[in-house]
């Protein structure tokens, strides 16, 4: 079985801070790492590889040259090979253009490795974009089935996969023939720490770097130009007011005011 995991290098969330003076994101400490949700995707792929004989796990990312580090990191966690879609022409892509480029990359991986791709795994979402759109998007471009919010792979063999989808009110169990796409949630596993042999393999790995032309991407569907959506403007949300005491003459009033405040803060 050939599994491809799609990952993204994103700023490490824990370090995202707003400079109170300038109101901008603080640059320092913006260490880049594998999007935390993708780590679960990598781990699940490696676990499937351990379960299904003769499996190979590839990992692909689209991003600037430094994103190669994230591919090496994935290799140290048990992935066999990495592929890097790296071209200025990819920059500024929204989820439409990103999923287009990634699926073209996946087609190229199949051609390059001469191994058809059976399963594509994405993280639930990225911690910088928060959309969760790329996984289903890839499935749409490839016209193959997909399930998102996967919290368990119940069964997998060379021809089908049965997964548990985490819903608000329980679990839906679905079955898809392969090839298929799944997007996984944190609940699915606990990622391992990179192994020493993995680290050595990661250091030595030769990672092909492909341009838009290499993956035969349609120039009208990639990067900023190929993105239907654009960021028109961005601004900092009003700073959170700290230390507010919820007032009210009666407990009923206090409860009401508290819930109203929480609603206003959009945290319910």
């Amino acid at each position, binding site marked *: 079985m050939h599994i491809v995991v799609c990952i993204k290098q994103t700023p490490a969330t824990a370090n995202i801070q707003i400079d109170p003076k300038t109101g901008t994101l603080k640059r320092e400490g913006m260490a880049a790492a594998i999007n935390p949700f993708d780590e679960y995707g990598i781990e699940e792929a490696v676990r499937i590889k351990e379960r299904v004989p003769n499996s190979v796990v590839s990992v692909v990312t689209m991003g600037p040259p*430094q994103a190669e580090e994230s591919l090496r990191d994935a290799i140290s966690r048990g992935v066999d090979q990495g592929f890097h879609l790296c071209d200025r022409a990819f920059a500024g892509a929204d989820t439409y253009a990103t*999923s287009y480029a990634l699926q073209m990359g996946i087609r190229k991986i199949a051609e390059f490795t001469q191994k058809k791709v059976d399963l594509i795994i994405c993280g639930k979402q990225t911690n910088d974009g928060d959309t969760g759109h790329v996984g289903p998007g890839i499935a749409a471009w490839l016209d193959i089935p997909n399930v998102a919010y996967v919290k368990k792979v119940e069964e997998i063999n060379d021809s089908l996969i049965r997964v548990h989808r985490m819903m608000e009110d329980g679990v839906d169990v679905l079955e898809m023939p392969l090839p298929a796409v799944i997007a996984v949630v944190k609940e699915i596993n606990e990622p391992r720490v990179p192994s020493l042999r993995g680290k050595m393999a990661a250091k030595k790995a030769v990672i092909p770097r492909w341009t838009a032309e290499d993956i035969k991407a349609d120039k009208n569907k990639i990067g900023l130009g190929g993105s239907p*959506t654009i*960021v*028109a403007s961005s601004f900092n949300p009003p700073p*959170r007011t700290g230390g507010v005491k919820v007032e009210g003459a009666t407990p009923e009033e206090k409860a009401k005011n508290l819930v109203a405040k929480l609603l206003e*803060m959009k945290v319910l």
Partner: protein
Amino acid sequence: MANEIFIIKERCTGCGSCVKVCPVNCISMTDRAKEEGVRWKKLAVIDVNTCVFCNACVEDCDRLFNKTKEKMPNPDFFHAIVMKKEKVEVNIDTTAYKGVWCFAEQRHGQLMPTIFELLHVGKKLSLDLNEDLSAVVIGHDVTQYAQEIIEHGADKVYVIDHPIFEHFVDEVYTNALTDLIKQEKPNKLLMPASIIGRSFSSRVAIAAQTGITADATELSINPKTRMLHATRPSFGGNLMATILCEKHRPEMATVRPMSFQRAEKQSGRKGEVINVKVDLSKWNIRTKFVRYEAEKKEDIDITAAEKVVSGGRGLGKPEGFKLIEELAHTLGAAVGASRPTVDAGWIPYKHQIGLTGRTIRPKLYFACGISGQIQHLAGMSSAEVIVAINKDTECPMFKLATLSVEGDLYELIPLIIKEINKIKHK
């Protein structure tokens, strides 16, 4: 050709204004080399690999140029950033697309209340556009809900009713909605940012060859361009971004639940119900729905949970955790605990938060009867919103809390549960 952006060194004053407006933080200031003979000390540098070519810095630099021009003619600085954007021809007649659509989600044959929030904001958009407001409901035996949707403001309801839609399957729902979009050409399409909405909206967008904004919390129509301005939080809420879909239709967005209030019901309101026939033979459905398992009352893992409700010594007795669990269940939150309650055997260790327990970083943290000893704070102080409920207003937790409520938790929590349920079931 790729997109290009560069800085005309001679014109950059090193003012740093562009650094502040850049949404992706790709501009930084460096020291100029001395021999250049320029009076400015700093120079802006753009990391083109991170740049999303949003034009914000260009506009900002031009604004400064225009501002300076008022005082001095022909200033030879500012106007320093040049962007060459790749042009892609898109030939879509945007005027052929009419109406605001809202997707009505159903689960196990029950209409989900998210549609009423969508109808509320959708109504406003439809009035601004002077176009119809419609809803689409996909399911089995769901025709019954059409009238209720109309009474909440929809002018038209498309009902796609067939046993195949009983359960949510990405491919099936995508086909149904995409076919309808292609046939009816709506202008805007709003979907809930629920698990179902988030799962298949992107598939629909690609199948319909259009753009989508995820998880919007604010929506408006630009009166001039008639375009949808969808604003959404990114970077974990640290930055708000307004997204446009200029050339493709429909403009799609998923809307974060509870971002808008629900539309008022107008009993007896009239509207059109359209039963959509589907041609299943065209579709290649591969996914099989196997079964649904109702949520067992299993604990949510506190380290992964977005919301955590914790109890402390202030509960006074082990039974207090029943109340904590009830509140957690109402919120969809995990249950946490402070050290003394775990030591007392009121709740297992895996719930313990703090120095000797788990460290968590939820969006919402309820500290009920927890005074906030330093060992506990170490495990949860980076929560985004902290609510403290305690009798003692002098406790350290009150100093840290975003919102603090003074009072008896046995009195307050049931009332809070009631309030939340009111909103949920309204």
